């Protein structure tokens, strides 16, 4: 259990989700189900993936990972540790334009799904 305690919580989702009862279906989950069912989630994932490559975010992360591995030594790094170290940097450096575009796409989806 030690390791799992050490892990920082994945930002926001947990904080929001924890506020509700576990059984209760949250709005966030309804939207997620709709996104998955319609296949839009796959499209969005691909969009984000493409955007992050285009804007150089992926290269940036690759460099950060390499640096970390170099610093720690190749044998002494685990994937989990990398995720723990890089995730905060990665989340912070996603360009606002990408976030805005994604948000816009999700909004459009919700509007079209509601109609």
């Amino acid at each position: 259990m030690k390791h799992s305690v050490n892990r920082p919580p994945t930002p926001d989702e947990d904080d929001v989700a924890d506020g509700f009862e576990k059984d209760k279906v949250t709005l966030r989950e309804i939207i997620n189900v709709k996104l998955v069912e319609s296949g839009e989630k796959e499209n969005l994932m691909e969009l984000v993936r493409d955007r992050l490559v285009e804007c150089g975010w992926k290269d940036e992360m690759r460099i950060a990972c390499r640096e970390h591995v170099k610093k720690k030594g190749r044998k002494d790094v685990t994937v989990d540790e990398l995720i723990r170290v890089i995730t905060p940097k990665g989340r912070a450096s996603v360009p606002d334009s990408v976030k805005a575009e994604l948000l816009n796409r999700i909004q459009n989806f919700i509007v079209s799904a509601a109609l």
Partner: protein
Amino acid sequence: MSARISFLKNPDPCNHLSDYKLRYGTDGYKSFNNLFRCFNDARIKIKLQGIDIPRCSYCSVYQKRLYICLICRSISCSSHILLHTQLNKGHDIAIDVERSELYCCACIDQVYDSEFDEVVVSKQLFGLGMSVKSGADVVAVRSNKKRRLDSQLIIGSNFLVSPRDRREKWTFPLGLRGLNNLGSTCFMNAVLQALVHAPPLRNFWLSGQHNRDLCPRRTMGLLCLPCDLDVIFSAMFSGDRTPYSPAHLLYSWWQHSTNLATYEQQDSHEFFISLLDRIHENEGKSKCLYQDNEECQCITHKAFSGLLRSDVTCTTCGSTSTTYDPFIDISLTLDSMNGFSPADCRKNRYSGGPSVNAIMPTLSGCLDFFTRSEKLGPDQKLNCQSCGEKRESSKQMSIRRLPLLLCLHVKRFEHSLTRKTSRKIDSYLQYPFRLNMSPYLSSSIIGKRFGNRIFAFDGEGEYDSSSSSSPSAEFEIFAVVTHKGMLESGHYVTYLRLKGLWYRCDDAWINEVEEEVVRGCECYMLFYAQETVIQKAHKELSYQVISMADAFPFADC
């Protein structure tokens, strides 16, 4: 490099993975075979039947990294996977649901096993419509839907190189072969692809008209670019489809143009001009018996050279002085304003075309702009012969003689001397696949100046009297060099049209593309060939058999 590969190939399995394999072998992996679901971008996820959104069996969270236990198939999130291992002894190895990668819960790290990867990748290949064993036997079905196979190719053991990709290339016309990037040399690869598939050049070299074994320059120990091109042509048409490295040509070109001998990115238009010039120099010297002819007989000039006419008219007395200049390509100005050139707008109104065309720069607009009558500014006064004074004048360009292969260069890189800045114009330019050049011929241009009359102007009439209807003014596109990116750093990609189909040549990678892709690209150099040349090339369905007559199709021009 080899050390790195062996490291990638044989990472030590952790004790937990070894234990698991000792006990279960690969059966556990295989039982997951029908749960892998492939996506077109070569990712593989695990999909459990009846469950759309997998959740952690402990906290039912779905946003985190989820792992499925190889033994009991229960799903745990990254926070609870350790708990799962502690509660169930021996349940150490799990698969990442989103990525289909092995994870050791006890080591808290990703683990690698070639046998697991084999199961996943064979599923992936199967998902792409092929089975690994029968890969070579399956009849090649060309799907328009291109899939990204990069991730498989990167893994790169013999087994993993996708048979589909290989097979597709075999059905490509002979001569299509990727060129390796030798360090920012896509500018060279892009031009080479276009030149290698220019029918007259191809016929010239493949028929052995410049044989590197017989070349006098080479036997004298001199550098000879045509010989290097001979090597390239042999390599391209050898039937071997593995990407080729044109290193000796690059070296040779460096020797010829020492100022360009760097690993920096170059302008592919500059490379094109410099390469043709060097070939002309090398070729011209070995064929001095043509020297009394006024036109150069070297292969580059026979193929690319045309004649420009420029008329300078004195605005005071109206007298015109005419000069003729040979050209091997035409550089066209692309600016937002010439998209609106009056001729262009008029044409659109006349044809009643959609109004979108009026806003979008078109190739015909650029050519109209090129052949327009241009008032020279007061600072460019020329000495008028009839007035005997320096007068303001206007200048107009037209094409006196069209080349066999027409290279149009779009000036996308603008260098301002006054502001000392450079910028790239990346606006879209609409261009046709079939181009009629007759409106830009001297006969038409000069004729227009005098109104709609039928008689020979300034000797243009008898030269190409039938030019307006002559088939030689009809051109068909065969290659487009495109530039993506910015001024300082970008990437050149060539689109080739062979037997009516388009192929994208991006360094080492070649694939078939739809017409729309080509129409939508950011064209930088357009290569057109006279319709008859293309038709002739089209008839030579198999490129291997080239008779001497076909090999020398420009005897009559």
